[in-house]
């Protein structure tokens, strides 16, 4: 078994809030270059899984490896798109400024961003179709636009792995299309994308890999092999049928 083949490998991961378990003994192997959805009911620990992979939350047991090494040593290879609602959008800053934040990691402590970083940020803004909004105060942006700004911030990081927490929540249809197109483009560049996703209907259309999660890992693999009523029922508890057009 060559560990290098896996973008992310999770072993026996258990996470508990206040000693109430939210993730249980998760084993997960995510190959490089997939566009993967994490699906599961509310409270299944989807966001927690992402946060645990990123080291934002400390697990009580288990380990996470990014390209075979601990996350701390691979910070520059991973980009994170948090939930839109996790920040205060009334913060005094502009769209361009937020996107520039994506360059801070590679700059390291104390060093300030310069022309090179600004150029990268502008390119990312253009990619998400927000170039004309660069000087806009972030509270003046619509929900979809805010989500695109977050995506642009991650794009600037130029990482190998992208972890996204519900990027389609509360965005308009145009933005959803724009985002998924960018994700597919990233995938074709060989990047690995892991997306917490809510809308089961769109899973086969958007993704090629899927992980079912409900506190325990239920199943993980190619959409065409494992996205079926059996796994959905196991994940969502009730006898789940979804109209899937494959």
């Amino acid at each position, binding site marked *: 078994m060559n560990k290098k083949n896996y973008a992310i490998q999770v072993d026996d991961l258990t996470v508990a809030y206040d*000693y109430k*378990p939210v993730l*249980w*003994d998760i084993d997960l192997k995510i190959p490089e270059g997939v566009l993967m959805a994490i699906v599961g009911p509310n409270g299944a620990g989807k966001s927690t899984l992402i946060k645990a992979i990123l080291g934002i939350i400390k697990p009580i047991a288990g380990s996470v490896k990014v390209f075979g090494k601990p996350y701390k040593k691979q910070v520059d290879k991973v980009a994170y798109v948090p939930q839109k609602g996790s920040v205060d959008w009334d913060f005094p800053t502009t769209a361009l400024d937020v996107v520039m934040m994506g360059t801070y990691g590679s700059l390291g402590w104390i060093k300030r961003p310069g022309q090179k970083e600004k150029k990268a940020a502008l390119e990312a803004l253009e990619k998400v179709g927000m170039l004309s909004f660069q000087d806009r105060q972030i509270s003046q942006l619509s929900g979809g636009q805010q989500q695109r700004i977050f995506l642009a911030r991650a794009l600037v990081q130029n990482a190998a792995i992208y972890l996204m927490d519900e990027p389609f929540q509360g965005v308009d249809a145009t933005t959803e299309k724009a985002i998924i197109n960018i994700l597919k483009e990233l995938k074709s560049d060989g990047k690995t994308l892991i997306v917490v996703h809510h809308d089961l209907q769109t899973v086969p259309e958007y993704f090629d890999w899927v992980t079912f999660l409900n506190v325990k890992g239920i199943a993980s693999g190619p959409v065409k092999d494992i996205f079926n009523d059996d796994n959905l029922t196991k994940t969502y508890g009730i006898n789940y049928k979804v109209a899937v057009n494959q």
Partner: protein
Amino acid sequence: MSSAQLEIQLIAALVAMACAIPGTFLVLRKMAMISDAISHSILPGLVFGFFITQDLNSPLLILLAAVTGVLTVIFVEFIQKTGLVKEDTAIGLVFPALFSIGVILIAKNANDVHLDIDAVLLGELAFAPFDRLMFGETDLGPKSVWVIGTILIISLSLLLLFFKELKLSTFDKGLAATLGFSPIVLHYGLMTVSSITVVGAFDAVGAVLVVALIIAPPATAYLLTNNLKKMLVLSCFFGIFSAIAGYWLANYLDASIAGSMTSVLGVLFLLVYLFAPKQGIFSVYFKEKQQRKEVSLLVFLLHLQNHQDPKERHVNHLQEHINWQKVQAKTVLDLATKNNLIQIDANNLVSLTEKGREFTDEALKYITTNKETAIEDLKKRFFLFRG
């Protein structure tokens, strides 16, 4: 003990009880800091009221000052709605502004107002017995007893009348609203009672320390009980205790009574904070340790259930595989063995016993349905020894 001493303790005890009642609801409704805002912002109302009535115990003055208190709450809510600043900043701006106006008014009119800054911060409990209510020639006792007694009776009767509504709207706002108890009426009712109480208590303990009497007894009680009635009774008890113990401490040190009442409350809180049977930090510490061990145990059992591969189940391998750092692998193994959940064979391979398998299955079911209480029951049923 002289009668003046007795009267001071009586007034202090009445004030403490009057504060504890609205305080309980403020603490439970996560609005404790509102009492801080009210107690500061009534000052200009008090001073204006004093210009008009010339009597700190006049009902009109109390009413005027209480209105200022309610207005503060409304004003804070207004600023918050404009979205210009967040709620905490709004509170943090409004009350110092009004308090400053009050302090300046007092300083500028020092000769006309028999209020000084010390009285604002500490109250004048020591002098309370000298301001007496006279009916003709008959001495009816200190005015403060009558004022604070009336306030206490009002809030007690409101409490008894609306106990059910208050309880429901405190613990389940949505349900209360659907049952027709207007949350707005209850909210402003509580604000009004709090304001009146603060004004009544102001004379005795001053603007800042009234906050201690409102927050500290209920907060201390909340660490000891889950029951609203018990919490109210305990709060009143802590209040009265601090009144009497505080008086004698002040007497001994020859220092401020209000300050020493607060200090007694501080010591009470510290003791409960450290030693309360369920919520105190010592017991929380032990409980956390136990929980951590038990969660680790569950992880371990689940791991055994998930992996049939002998390599994954070897005693020496567990340490490496389930990243134990916080809990020693050995304690977990011991705990599992003691509870007959696992067995270790001659090759040092660990496997689940029948009981262990049953337990793991059920635990998993409970975890995925997110029922926390259920898992505690389960532990009671299966465990002979706790972690």
